[in-house]
């Protein structure tokens, strides 16, 4: 800083005041910018991630690592609802609890396979967050999309953010032509009959406000993936604000997929049921 040598005390005082005023203005401007940045970054929400598992010994460990990798600076907990897996999934979850802490990974097991819908209800009972994320344990839902779900919800104030595989930016991998055909045919049929307001009805990678999930889940009775459809259609009928984000879906890497041939009949029955009751 140049020394004010040889100036009168009045001039020195004046230049001092000018400098400090300028500094004060600049500091005030910088503080305002910092506060705005902090407002956008501070996310006071807590997210409970419910993951139903059955024989996902390896996948659950990989999933937990990826969630922690992509959700830094976010308050969350992972609730693993295991239906008595015989392959030792629960042991692996206990090991993960040693690494990450029992307050971040909750083990809420059940004695045997009791269905997806009840798994969510069970997980909800133990969820302490104000938002709930549901996702599959088989890595077809990649945790790297979790920040985009959260960001979309913060930007729009939506009650539900659902991942869609069928828009630009999303996609699938590992599906043969037959699978794509049935998926696309099922989607067109559902869109024509139900007018659901979302592009991906059977997707199960979603973020719900906890109160909204409790409300919607109490009125759903279907099983399997029709349950996912019922949830989003009921939410749409109840006029909840639903937003979509594109996600990529890589068909399961480890383990056997649980989709069979009789699913088509189940789907058509589910569609008819939704048509009449929602």
């Amino acid at each position, binding site marked *: 800083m140049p020394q004010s040598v040889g100036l009168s005390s009045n001039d020195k005082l004046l230049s001092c005041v000018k400098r400090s005023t300028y500094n004060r203005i600049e500091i005030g401007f910088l503080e305002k910018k910092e506060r705005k940045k902090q407002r956008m970054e501070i996310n006071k929400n807590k997210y409970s991630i419910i993951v139903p598992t059955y024989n996902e010994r390896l996948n659950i460990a*990989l999933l937990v690592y*990826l969630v922690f990798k992509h959700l830094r600076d976010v308050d969350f907990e992972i609730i693993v609802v295991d239906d008595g897996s015989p392959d030792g999934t629960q042991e692996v979850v206990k090991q993960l609890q040693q690494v990450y802490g029992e307050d971040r990974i909750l083990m809420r097991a059940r004695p045997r396979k009791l269905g997806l819908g009840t798994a969510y209800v069970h997980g909800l009972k133990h969820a302490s967050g104000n938002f709930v994320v549901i996702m599959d344990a088989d890595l077809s839902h990649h945790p790297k999309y979790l920040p985009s779900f959260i960001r979309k919800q913060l930007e729009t104030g939506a009650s539900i953010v659902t991942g869609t595989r069928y828009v630009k930016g999303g*996609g699938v*991998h590992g599906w043969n032509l037959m699978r794509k*055909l049935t998926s696309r045919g099922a989607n067109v049929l559902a869109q024509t009959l139900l007018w659901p307001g979302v592009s991906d009805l059977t997707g199960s990678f979603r973020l719900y406000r906890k109160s909204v999930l409790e409300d919607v889940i109490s009125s759903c009775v279907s099983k399997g993936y029709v349950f996912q459809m019922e949830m989003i259609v009921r939410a749409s009928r109840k006029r909840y604000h639903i937003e979509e984000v594109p996600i990529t879906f890589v068909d399961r*890497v480890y383990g056997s997929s649980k989709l069979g041939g009789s699913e088509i009949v189940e789907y058509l029955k589910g569609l008819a049921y939704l048509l*009449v009751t929602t």
Partner: protein
Amino acid sequence: MKHIVKLLILLVAVSAFWIGLLETVVPRSYAWLLPVYFIVSLGCYGLLMVGVGLMHFPTCPQEAVLLQKDIAEAKEFLKQRGVDVDCD
């Protein structure tokens, strides 16, 4: 209001319009065939949507590669910390 009720009301409105057409302007033979035309065109539209959707089905082969990288990274990390990540 249930969705089926909405659809039925729409159907009734369209039928009323069709019956109206029957009585008035359009020659009888054509008017009787209108429902058939409608259903056939609806079917064609559905097939078209399926075909277009199938052509433009978004795929992401690069995601599989990225996933494999993520898996390797995760296994490395977890093995060091004593979590059992052997292949099943």
